[in-house]
């Protein structure tokens, strides 16, 4: 009898919502980090176009390429992305500065916090905390933080564009959908620069991966900007569930070799 009561109590508790969390939303909370070294994931380490990633998959699994090393196939996919995929999305104005000269304007070598596209697709640890009315993102790169409001609010009347913009979100089934506007003009890791008219839709989905259930998080970021793109550019990357990882502070940034 006593054991039966305990069992019933446990079953009832299991049905109760987690305090502060809406029901029927995917559980994305916790620490995520780089996936194990894999061909496509390495290609997308700091973000890639979805088309470029699919092209790499195609040539990796083509029997005609059996003797070609990964470095060569990756280079082919990077060239495809750089010379065909991304340019086909850019406006004539954006093409004038594409691809950016990384030696003349090094991106990661400058000790400045990253802009939106680089931050969203940044590698390494990335912590998500879900609340009833918002989701918090905490990135290991630059220890940047974002808040995604789930309560349907609009940007404040005096909102000014910022490095990471203003984000609202909602859940669509197993996916967290984030819409961001008000992003400062900046450069990307993919050779293009965008204007302050950039708007981005991010779709985060937790999926199964080799060796685990729900231990992989994928994002597809859809970039739209009338100044930069003549059609939406789809980019993405992935993380692996990494509860033991930590986020360390950014200290004493010095440009390498300075």
């Amino acid at each position, binding site marked *: 009898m006593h054991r039966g009561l305990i069992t019933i109590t446990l079953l009832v508790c299991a049905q109760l919502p987690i305090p502060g969390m809406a029901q029927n939303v995917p559980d994305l909370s916790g620490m995520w980090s780089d996936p194990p070294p894999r061909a496509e994931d390495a290609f997308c380490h700091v973000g890639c176009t979805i088309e470029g990633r699919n092209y790499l998959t195609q040539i990796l699994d083509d029997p005609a390429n059996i*003797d070609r090393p990964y470095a060569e196939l990756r280079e082919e996919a990077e060239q495809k992305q750089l010379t065909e995929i991304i340019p086909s999305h850019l406006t004539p104005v954006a093409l004038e500065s594409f691809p950016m000269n990384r030696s003349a304007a090094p991106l990661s070598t400058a000790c400045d916090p990253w802009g939106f596209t680089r931050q969203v697709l940044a590698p390494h640890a990335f912590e998500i905390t879900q609340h009833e009315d918002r989701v918090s993102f905490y990135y290991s790169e630059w220890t940047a933080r974002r808040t995604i409001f789930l309560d349907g609010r609009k940007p404040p009347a005096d909102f000014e564009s910022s490095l990471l913009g203003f984000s609202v979100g909602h859940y669509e089934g197993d996916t967290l959908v984030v819409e961001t506007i008000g992003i400062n003009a900046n450069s990307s890791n993919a050779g293009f620069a965008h204007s302050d008219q950039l708007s981005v839709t991010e779709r985060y989905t937790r999926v199964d991966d080799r060796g685990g259930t729900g231990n992989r998080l994928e994002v597809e970021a859809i970039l739209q900007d009338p100044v930069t793109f003549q059609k939406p550019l789809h980019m993405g990357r992935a993380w692996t569930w990494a509860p033991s990882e930590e986020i360390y502070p950014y200290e004493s940034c010095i440009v390498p070799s300075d």
Partner: protein
Amino acid sequence: MKSFIGGVFILSAYLLTSIAQAHHSFRGVFDFSKHTTLRGTVVKFDLLNPHARVFMEVVNENGETEQWVVEAPGKLSLARRGWTDDMFGDREVITATGNPSSTGKMAIWLEDLVLNDGTKFIDPLVSDDEAIEAERRDRAQRAAEQSNN
């Protein structure tokens, strides 16, 4: 930059393309076609983000002590591979290999580092490359087998 036969070995340019080269954002800062090996004493270690730095004293062929810096990825990457703040002993002698500065500064970008006891640490990107190449070979083999069936 001098070329040494004592503590510092400047190796000739490799023709081999490195996958790690494609990863790095520092193409204008380091020459990824060249490799330099340093043997010297660790005098300071900053395991920080966004980049870590190992400061070394290296004695050149003329017996002069030079101050070198081994630049490496940040703590985010290195801590996952076992790097710790106290991994070097007091004035430990190590061997570090990396890509030399393009501007002639006494700095290299880490490729691998060997402690006094022989423990070896590889640039995380290089160790990833080996696993990925193994995956590629497996996939290519499977694709070829399916194609033959």
